[in-house]
């Protein structure tokens, strides 16, 4: 089966989504993963956007969470207030899975999407939190997309925008955050999960043709790779649904 890395990543993330999940998604590949889950393995899952649309029909792929395509035939069109309240709400929030991306990640799944360098005189400025910090703070679990690069998997973040497990077990609780935190990091080489005790990232799987060593070489910090297994590539069915149902015009893929 011929597939691109982007397709692999979208499918790997989609497989993490279950029926009865409410999926918060952002733009780009995260939107694609949410749509893939809905069209493939979790038809009862519900997609929702921080801008306030829930369960949009999504006949056409949105290019931003402010895209008018998410307003068409949704269950309700609210605003930012409603959407973030839904995440922080104890009853709905516990069903929500967030999909995030970032410029940097550390071993506890904390994310930086604000600056490289000093905050007050940055070398590189990024978009900033947007809703990412809110999602990472509120929802029961989150899936993170990252490029597997040494400068992105950092011992220490230049700026901690969105909370993962902060500095280890109990740290979220101590800081005052709700339970939750990242569960998967999907990269262009494999997938990490987080140890239930130490809350540290470990390698859960690698793509066919990639070795755990290669992944380690593309990270600044060391992670446990003993639990890693090769990840099953996208099936023909997964691929065709992804291509034909989710992004027929190849806007993201």
């Amino acid at each position, binding site marked *: 089966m011929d597939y691109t890395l982007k397709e692999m990543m979208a499918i790997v993330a989609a497989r993490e989504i279950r029926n009865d999940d409410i999926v918060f998604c952002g733009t780009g590949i995260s939107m694609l993963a949410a749509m893939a889950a809905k069209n493939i393995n979790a038809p009862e899952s519900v997609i929702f956007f921080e801008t306030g649309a829930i369960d949009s029909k999504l006949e056409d792929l949105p*290019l931003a969470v402010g895209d008018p395509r998410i307003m068409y035939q949704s269950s309700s069109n609210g605003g930012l207030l409603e959407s973030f309240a839904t995440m922080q709400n104890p009853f709905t929030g516990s069903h929500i899975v967030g999909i995030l991306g970032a410029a940097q990640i550390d071993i506890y799944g904390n994310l930086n999407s604000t600056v490289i360098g000093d*905050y007050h005189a940055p070398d590189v400025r990024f978009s900033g939190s947007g809703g990412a910090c809110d999602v990472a703070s509120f929802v029961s679990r989150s899936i993170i997309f990252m490029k597997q690069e040494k400068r992105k998997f950092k011992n220490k973040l230049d700026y901690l925008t969105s909370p993962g497990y902060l500095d280890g077990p109990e740290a979220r609780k101590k800081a005052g955050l709700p339970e939750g935190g990242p569960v998967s990091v999907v990269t262009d080489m494999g997938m990490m999960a987080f140890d239930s005790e130490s809350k540290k990232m470990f390698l859960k799987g690698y793509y066919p043709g990639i070795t755990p060593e290669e992944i380690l070489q593309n990270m600044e910090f060391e992670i446990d790779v003993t639990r890693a297994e090769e990840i099953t590539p996208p099936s023909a069915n997964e691929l065709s649904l992804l291509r034909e149902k989710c992004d027929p015009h190849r806007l993201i893929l």
Partner: protein
Amino acid sequence: MKVNGNKITSLEGAVKTHVKDGCHLSIGGFTINRNPMAAVYEIIRQKTKNLHLYAHSNGQGADELIGAGAVSCLEIAYGGTGKFAATCIRFRKAVEEEKIQVEDYTNYQMTLRFLAGSMGVPFLPSRTSLGTDIIEKWGFAPEFRNQQPNIPNKKLVVLENPFDDWCDTKKIVLVPAINPDVTIIHVQKADYRGNCRIDGLTFADVEQAKAARTLIITCEELLDDDYLKNQPDRNQIPFIHADAVVHIPYGAYPTACYKYYDYDPVFLKQYAELAKNEEKYQSYLESIYNRKSHRELLDFVGRGRLEMIKADKNRGYAAKLDRR
């Protein structure tokens, strides 16, 4: 705000009267949707300077104001336009070159801050951002905050829950209210007194509108009072908040206006390209200065492209638009 009466005015007049140098401004919309672009270009044309801009994720509008050098202080959650610019380019440049002072919040925090302003309370609580640098690192130095009477003395405050652990909550973040001098929003329908009907998502427009000392509304359609009052459930902003109403079709162009037109991918892509180049951006700015009105931009873009982005009646966006 002005309670009652006819508030219809010209865009030039509304901006000249209300958007002064140094004014605290917020604009509506989100990334590539319903930004009040006609008003943004008018502000650029009037060469307003030293704006203190409050943005959550107001992508294109905020970036053009920053690119034109109109902004000196920025409180923001997100500077991006989705696929067109993951990080807005002039925003990025301005921060990296330290031409503007920035204070970072989250989208929810910015929304709560407008809500607090609209509710007349000094702060609102949420559990977001605990343990992060959003709390630790302040963009505006304490001295700067103390010098300015119209910004709060603190970026935010972490409070122990005074109701013990009610709602399983030990600590909570309080974010301070925003009451902008001026908010500008672009809506689908308004009447002469300033009743507004927004189609599709409202983003944080309603809170931004009600938080402002002065509210300027630009609208696609200017309708009779009676028309809007026939379906009051659909009117999100009652006229008592409004000061100025400007009828300006395609007033959100090149961003989208649900049910009316889509965003223009050609414009947004070209903009992202030229924003990377100092020289090209300067001549882009010249083109804005040289236009007398939004109408001239639309004439320049041409009927063909406006036809392409015209929204399908049913879907509310241009389903056949080539967005690659």
